[in-house]
């Protein structure tokens, strides 16, 4: 049984944001600017050329991580906006969130002295390479495959079943970083900044978890229907 979304297109957009402020960073990814006044979700979406049902589907997953997406929804909803949304999310992580965390971390690395600093630096650099590799794979291999499938073009032998959404490494290492910053780094090294960066990490972590849920529950089933239609 698929659950009803908590909000309908007639609800005011701000009401939804007030209940779950975590949805705020999603707006720019859909091209929705702030200053939307008291307009409803449907009105704001239409004014910005966003499919309201796709918008609600994604917001629903961000609000309830046990939300189940019904296969019928996948078939019925216009998915034109899905890839641009996922790409915009990648940009948000890579161009905004990670650099922000890195800036803080750099201060901590500087204050920690060479012994601890070097290894934190090494840890973070290794992690960044992993993150970039992961998103690059999606953007250069997986998304173009889906794009050509959507256009009905003949594609190589790739199939979505080969693509297992595996963000778990990215989230796990983020959690490791949190453990190190909170539990194991000596307490006198920039405690205030460490608390700040930890809050950022928790937010990014939650965002990444929802992001992989969207790929698992929307992207993969959607591509599977495209693949089946082709056969």
């Amino acid at each position: 049984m698929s659950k009803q979304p908590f909000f309908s297109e007639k609800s005011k957009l701000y009401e939804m944001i007030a209940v779950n402020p975590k949805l705020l960073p999603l707006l720019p990814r859909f091209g929705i600017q702030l200053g939307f006044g008291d307009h409803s979700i449907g009105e704001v979406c239409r004014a910005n050329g966003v499919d309201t049902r796709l918008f609600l589907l994604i917001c629903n997953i961000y609000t309830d991580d046990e939300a189940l997406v019904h296969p019928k929804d996948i078939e019925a909803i216009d998915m034109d906006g899905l890839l641009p949304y996922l790409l915009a999310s990648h940009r948000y992580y890579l161009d905004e969130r990670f650099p922000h965390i890195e800036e803080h971390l750099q201060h901590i690395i500087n204050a920690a002295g060479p012994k601890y600093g070097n290894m934190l630096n090494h840890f973070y650099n290794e992690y960044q390479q992993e993150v970039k590799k992961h998103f690059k794979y999606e953007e250069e291999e997986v998304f173009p495959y889906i794009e050509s499938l959507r256009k009905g073009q003949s594609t190589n032998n790739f199939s979505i079943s080969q693509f297992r959404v595996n963000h778990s490494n990215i989230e796990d290492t983020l959690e490791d970083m949190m453990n190190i910053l909170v539990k194991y780094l000596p307490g006198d090294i920039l405690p205030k900044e460490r608390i700040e960066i930890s809050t950022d990490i928790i937010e990014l972590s939650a965002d990444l978890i929802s992001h992989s849920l969207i790929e698992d529950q929307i992207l993969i089933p959607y591509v599977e229907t495209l693949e089946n239609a082709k056969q």
Partner: protein
Amino acid sequence: MSNRIIICEASEIITTGLYEIIQGISGCDVVARVDTPDQLTEKILSTDANMLIINTNLLGFTDRNLPQQLKKEYPQLTVIALMTTYVEPSTLKPYDGVIEINDTKLKVINKMNQFAHDAEKQDKTDDVELSKREIDVLVAVAKGMMNKEIADQMNISIHTVISHRKNITRKTGIKSVSGLTVYALLNNLIDENEVYK
């Protein structure tokens, strides 16, 4: 392992429905049904319950910490939120799990089994200090050795290495190899020169 359950819910209709589903699950036994949280403490004591399912709406702002208080008093107690209206996700934090009003019967059964499983697992997670053997494995992992190499060097099976690694992760909270390396360095278990060349 049997679950002795108290249902705390004001609606007779919901209590009866939930009771019907739970009584059908093997290993689950509803030992009390109450409609207010007032006498929960005594009820838990007198029935020796180890699970409480309580409607979140029964707890106002002043007694929002009741789940923590009860768990502090009864460490074996699992507290499950019964959600009949939408509530703030943060409200659900003190609970060990959530049952929702529109969950199917199957979903409730699955969740109940999961809660029981989680409660059992939690019993084992008390010790936090790494054992001597676990430290040896940690150091080897931090140096970049593979499970097979570690097993050969320490003269143990790969299976044992994996089990040590699971315990290390459980105790330290760290999963990745690079994170474990940082942990080993911070605790002076290895020297910087041994890892980053």
